[in-house]
């Protein structure tokens, strides 16, 4: 007989090991799934994890694309992780991402066709402020009325999506677009274009922002007093209150930071890879970032790695679809497995498996 026993302290060894074990378990279970679909399992796994990085045909293009795809995930996840540490659950990053994109694009479209150096910085600021304000709605409602920020922030996603639709066919619509929805393409507007910084690298300012956010979050959480207060508020709310930490301030700070970062991510996306405000601009980064935050164990460096891994499964998954003919849903299931095994592995961090002493005959009698 085996039983689970709670560890007195979470195991550091397992905390480092489980992501790798989860990855291996996903490859095995995913391989079985691919095999059952009648596809070569080893080829499929290799296409997903190896080809984007090392296949000579694709790698030169895919490697920088990993950064492009990972940047918004990392930027949003970093913000979310700070809140999650404090027990402030911002589930609505997708909405803040959309509002940030709308505000950033609106600044650019208002300035069009003026070319000036200040337009791009103004867009970044507008994106951050837009996301910040959108996140302040659940923050203020929670502080003033005690509402649940999970529900409010989530519901605001749908409000944001409606606004996005309305803006793409209304105010922000391209006047030269023959009546089709969608704004002007910012890629064709030099002052507003979040272009690649080095020729051929695909690396845009969002990637730089994502890496900076990782470093800043690390400094904030491990070196700064505010970081300590945030962690304390999450781990022991009562103790935090005795220590003079104002929970309202923590709520506002956490939602504000995550909202601003999500808004910036949206702005970098709309001005760069996406190019325009369109009805289906939102592609779920705000929700996937929640997975990335937990995959990275709410640790900035972990999130960096998790964001890159997640984007690898996306890009490798795309390759596997048209090279091997895997259905899109099999790739989603594969990503789901990764999260499943990771959460299952969490058990080993907090619990250990002990052999229960067999019940003796005497006891049984």
């Amino acid at each position, binding site marked *: 007989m085996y039983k689970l026993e709670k560890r007195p302290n979470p195991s550091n060894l397992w905390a480092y090991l489980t992501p790798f074990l989860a990855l291996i378990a996903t490859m095995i279970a995913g391989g079985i799934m691919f095999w059952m679909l009648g596809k070569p399992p080893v080829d499929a796994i290799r296409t997903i994890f190896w080809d984007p990085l090392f296949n000579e*045909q*694709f790698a030169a*293009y*895919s490697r920088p*694309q990993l950064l*492009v*795809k990972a940047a918004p995930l990392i930027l949003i996840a970093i913000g979310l992780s700070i809140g999650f540490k404090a027990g402030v659950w911002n589930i609505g990053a997708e909405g803040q991402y959309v509002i940030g994109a709308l505000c950033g694009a609106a600044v650019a479209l208002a300035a069009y066709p003026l070319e000036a150096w200040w337009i791009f910085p103004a867009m970044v600021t507008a994106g951050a402020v837009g996301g910040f304000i959108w996140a302040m709605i659940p923050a203020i409602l929670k502080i003033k009325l005690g509402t649940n920020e999970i529900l409010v922030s989530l519901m605001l996603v749908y409000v944001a999506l409606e606004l996005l*639709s*309305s803006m793409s*066919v*209304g105010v922000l619509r391209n006047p030269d677009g*023959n*009546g*089709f*929805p969608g704004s002007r*393409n910012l*890629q064709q507007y030099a002052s507003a274009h979040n272009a690649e910084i080095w020729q051929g690298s695909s690396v845009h300012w969002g990637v730089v922002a994502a890496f900076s956010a990782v470093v800043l979050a690390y400094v904030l959480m491990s070196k700064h007093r505010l970081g300590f207060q945030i962690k304390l508020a999450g781990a022991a709310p009562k103790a935090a209150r005795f220590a003079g930490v104002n929970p309202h301030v923590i709520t506002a700070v956490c939602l504000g930071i995550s909202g601003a970062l999500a808004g910036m991510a949206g702005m970098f*996306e709309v001005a*760069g*890879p*996406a*190019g*325009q405000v*369109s*009805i*289906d*601009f939102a*592609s779920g980064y705000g929700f996937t970032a929640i997975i990335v935050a937990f995959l990275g164990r709410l640790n900035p460096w972990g999130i960096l790695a998790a964001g890159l891994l997640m984007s690898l499964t996306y*890009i490798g998954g*795309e*390759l596997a*679809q*048209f*090279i091997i*003919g895997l*259905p*899109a*849903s099999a790739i989603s299931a594969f990503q789901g497995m990764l999260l499943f095994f990771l959460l299952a592995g969490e058990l080993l961090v907090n619990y250990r498996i002990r052999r229960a002493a067999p019940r003796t005959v005497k006891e049984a009698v």
Partner: protein
Amino acid sequence: MILRRTLLAAAATALALTSGAFADGHEKLKVGFVYVGSIGDGGWTYEHNQSRLAVDEAFGDKVETIYQESVPEGADAERVMTQMALSGAKLIFTTSFGYMDPTINVAAKFPDVKFEHATGYKTADNVSTYSARFYEGRAVQGHIAGKMTKTNKIGYIASFPIPEVIRGINSAYLHAKRVNPDVEFNIIWAFTWEDPAKEADAAKTLIEQGADVILQHTDTTAPLTVAAENEGVIGFGQASDMAQFKDGPRVSSIIDNWAPYYIDRVKAVMDGTWETVQTWDGIDTGMVEIGEITDRVPADIKAEAEAMIEAMRTGAYHPFTGPINKQDGTPWLADGEVADDGTLAGMSFYIEGLTGDIPQ
């Protein structure tokens, strides 16, 4: 002399390229397809995929087709197309309006790869566009719907407020109103191409509001499933025949048949005769087909509908023939005047009689 030499050189190069690519019979032409929905949607993407299979069938081992389904419109689409081009695809069909700018961007990076973008309006040296005159099919639907409705209420599930969809609404309304002056259109904008739950909700709402005919411009069979649950409600197959509902609510359908076009374009690339074109075909070339009108439609109405189809096939009848006013009452087409393609392509207004506003 110089000119002649250049021509000869060009011919020699072309010959070398052709023989290098196809002479040994092992080099296949790789053709890529980018789909917005899943190939199992039973509608739009399903038909594109059927036409892809027709390409496979027509060319056998001379082609290799690859595809990717459920590709979001935007940055992801651009990457998918780039990867397809990197993998050696020489012809790529991008099958949704939202792929327009990504297609143009990627095409600029791969001048030797040909691109075909469905339902868009931007072209380049290596980008053609193609679409079908679905509004011809909508005219037939409108006629049948106007004749068949008992409640005089027709429900319309619209996707996005783009000209193609608005054209369809106008065409259906025009022809329903012509045979039934009391007819009313209720329009729900779903803001999605493929979302069975949303489409089903829209159908339920429309039926609750009294509609007994459901027209849809979304891609799945969900609205027909809802119609099947409601006595006396009829609908039409959209993009695909949706023949599995023939015994139930489906009385006819608009079928997008891309196969002849796809085969034609693949052949053009193989022969080296591919040129940029803007194709907009209708019932006449078979790109738009009207699925079998079932016996649920009385024989006289069926005969009228078939006569209309025939008139459109021969070009004798254009669905947008005046007199037609715009929604605000201002004249659009004078008596006997036929709409020009430019206005139709960018149509962003309702015609007179339709209520409500196009979402802004």
